[in-house]
């Protein structure tokens, strides 16, 4: 009988102790929000273009965290999908063309002599990259433009173009060396066969 009592007491004591520890830990080390959302958000290109169907990158990050597809971000393209797949440990899937195509880096360009100064594009710009005032000509701060093209639609005179981002000599990057091909094979017989074994 006493063994049973001791066992019950011991187990109860253990349960209480660990319960207290866990309870303390849950308060002390409480994680605010979902950390995975931040990680996903940091991988998204932050164009805030909404092509994914969500009003900005963070909402899409939240959606991905809740199980949405990772291939809805055209500005991020393949690289973003790969990074997301890595992070979430899921299969890499091709970009969902329904949400648009990866066009490469773009920036908005305002044809300034056509601008009527309506400020509509300024209001549409998610990153405050358009400078101007009412009835004053507007212009795009190229270094801040994310190329989301949200300013194009609101323009009443269609004076905004999306042009490829200017790439100067300082943006140039070395290409990946071409992988060895069989055409360049050293052994003559391989060349004739056209294919290596």
């Amino acid at each position: 009988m006493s063994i049973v009592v001791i066992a019950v007491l011991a187990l109860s004591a253990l349960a209480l102790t660990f319960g207290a520890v866990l309870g303390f830990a849950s308060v002390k080390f409480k994680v605010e929000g979902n950390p995975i959302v931040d990680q996903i958000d940091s991988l998204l290109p932050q164009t805030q273009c909404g092509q994914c169907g969500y009003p900005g990158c963070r909402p899409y990050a939240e959606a991905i965290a809740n199980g949405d597809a990772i291939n809805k971000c055209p500005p991020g393209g393949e690289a973003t999908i790969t990074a997301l797949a890595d992070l979430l440990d899921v299969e890499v899937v091709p970009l969902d063309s329904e949400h648009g195509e990866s066009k490469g880096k773009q920036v908005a360009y305002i044809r300034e002599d056509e601008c009527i100064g309506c400020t509509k594009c300024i209001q549409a710009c998610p990153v405050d990259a358009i400078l101007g005032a009412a009835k004053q000509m507007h212009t795009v701060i190229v270094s801040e433009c994310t190329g989301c093209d949200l300013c194009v639609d609101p323009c009443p005179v269609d004076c905004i173009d999306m042009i490829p981002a200017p790439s100067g000599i300082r943006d140039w990057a070395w290409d990946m060396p071409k992988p060895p091909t069989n055409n360049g094979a050293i052994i003559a017989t391989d060349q004739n066969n056209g294919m290596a074994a």
Partner: protein
Amino acid sequence: MRQIWDFHGGVHPPENKSQSTSRPIRKATLPRTLILPLSQHIGQPAKALVAPGQKVLKGEVVAAAEGPVSVAVHASSSGTVTAVERRPVPHPSGLSDICIVIETDGEDAWTHLTPCEDYRSLSPEQLLERVRQGGIAGMGGAGFPTAIKLHPPRNDKVNALILNAAECEPYITADDMLMRERADEVIRGMEIMAQLLEPEECLIGIEDNKPAAIAALKQAASGTHIEVVVIPTKYPSGGEKQLIKILTGLEVPHGKIPADIGVMCQNAGTAAAVYRAVRFGEPLISRITTVTGDGVATPGNFEVLLGSPMSDLLQQAGFDASKTDRLIMGGPMMGFTLTDPNLPLVKTSNCIMAVSAKEFPRPDPAQACIRCGLCAEACPAELLPQQLYWFAKAQEFDKAENYNLFDCIECGACSYVCPSSIPLVQYYRYAKNQIRVTAQEQQKSDKARERFEFRQARLEREKEEKEAKRKARAEAAAKAQAEKVAQQQDAPAEVDPKKAAIEAAIKRAQAKRAPAPAQAQAQAQVNIAELQTNVDKAREKLEKVRETLAESDGANAAMQEKLSNAIAKNEERLAAAEKALHDAQNSAQGTPAASNATPATQADPEQQARAIARTRDKIKTLTQAIEACRETDPQRAAQLTETVEKTKAKLAELEAESAPTDKAIDKPPEPNLEELTSQVEKARDKLSMMQGMLDDARAEQPADEAKIAKLQRAVEKNQDRLAAAQKTLEEARTQASGAGVKAASPEEIEALTSALEKAQDKLAMMQNMLSEAQQESPMDEAKVAKLSRAVEKNQDRVAAARATLNEARGDAAENQTSTDGAGA
């Protein structure tokens, strides 16, 4: 002999230096055009200061340094600026960049220079400034701004100043020839740098394959504290980190710069440039460049103006295009192929090679890595090139980074030894670029996120501010409203409603009787008396008109109408006169004598008065309907009469209700009760009178049923009223016994009194009419109708009198008398 160390790896490629050392430095001819790229250095491009068409002199600044890491550009010769535009520049990409194009005038006229003989006495700041103005960038190959390098950011103590004269790369002999011919300049330049940095030791590291240069340097350096250290020839001992290791045994840690370990490396060419800038004030407008390779007949070194087209230089070296497979800037190990022979020479162009295919065969096609490990043995940075290659190829850049990809100096030793001819360095460059681009993109996206979030926060804040403003406005409005209300309420609350009312009454009375209260009172009395007489007169007149009407009855319809009109008018006049009288009485009540008059609630009596008026209207209508259908439909008339009776009962009720309410507005109980009692008496009198009339009518004209009915109704009504009056009286009594003394508002008293008066008048009128009707033709329907109307009017007035009754009680005793007199 100084101890030297060895660095890991390294290779010994064929040197091929002798071709270009056989001839002394030649001065290149003045080119027709100079193309000066704004970015000949690491860091931000300089900012052009000249415009097309502008004349410039040799040594004049044409582009100023912009930003913390930048270098000015000077005109290499005198001439005219023809363009500031994009031109192809020597860069592995073959892309264009902004350049200042100068058409030389052949005069080669120097701008004003400020030489300084006694440069040894200059302060470090002054020296640095002269170096900065000289536009000097590192001439070894990377092109880091020398002025910045000479001014370590944290003012780290430089223990060892090292002059890099190793020139380990094959083919290149520019530094070698410079040291051979201008060892003095190099040594002086180094002395200036030492003056700036005050190092503990000054070392010149030079490979043992340049005996002539070593001799010249040793000679020039004799008598100075500069030590010329001869090191074994091995590629890439000229690498900064490798040279530091060789000379000091120290290794630059990962991610650090030599300044962090107290070492500074400068190129021999840079030292010479620093000397010329400090001593003569000459900016960096020329350099020694090696032109070599199978493609040139007379390879050698040229002192060439910066911005000179390479084609010019190549021509002077006997360029043979047929023998040339490609042009390379830099050495065979680290240089890159040029796409265009017309590219300008820049501050970092130490060597131009026109190589034949035999001399520099195209690289064999890369084959699979056989994991031989030769690259790892050759790597001077002790990396694992093979691993880096795999990671770069698989685009696993984070892993490559973990394998210290960024410690790679891209010396090409690994590629040189690779048996599979894998372009390893290209892979590393690619991987490095990708990592940098990713980091930049990450930075940009972080910035975009920051801006986006800031914008969101801003919009939110603006919304909140707007809301707060709106709320504040609403609150202010509400407050203002509340204050208004409070002011309205507060004043009486503070003073007590009674007092306020009294005060108001006093004020009004005073306004009316400005001279003196006593006199005013007397005057008011006189006025009232006058008005009283007016009223009496008007009444008399009315009576007369009525009599006339009665007399003329039946004789002349037109006349009758006129008379009726006259009566109506007279009635109106009478009413007006009565009103005036009561106004006067009211103002008289406003005097201190009447100060025990109290204000009363207004809303309720008003409502009831309205209800009563409505009921009265109804009765009127009904009575008219009865009259209309009396002849045609007696039954219906009877029904209607019943309805009228009911409505009248209701009216009576309403009046009864209104009476107590009025009474609740407590008044001086004594006169009140008296009044009520007198009213009741009067009503009783009237009732008995009416009954008498009714009896008479019945006796005289039993046929005239309509009239009898009417009279009966009148009697009934009077009975009702009597009952109501009695009730009121009783209630007043109870109240008087229970409640405190309160006064009726003057307005109310006024209205009620006037109503009472009217009712009394009309009753009298009705009496007359009835008597007339009794006396004269009973069968005259028209007259009966008229009488009916008169009765109705009278009824109205009586009802009004009922409402007024209670207010009248509030009258002061003196006024009371006059009112009663008027009523009588």
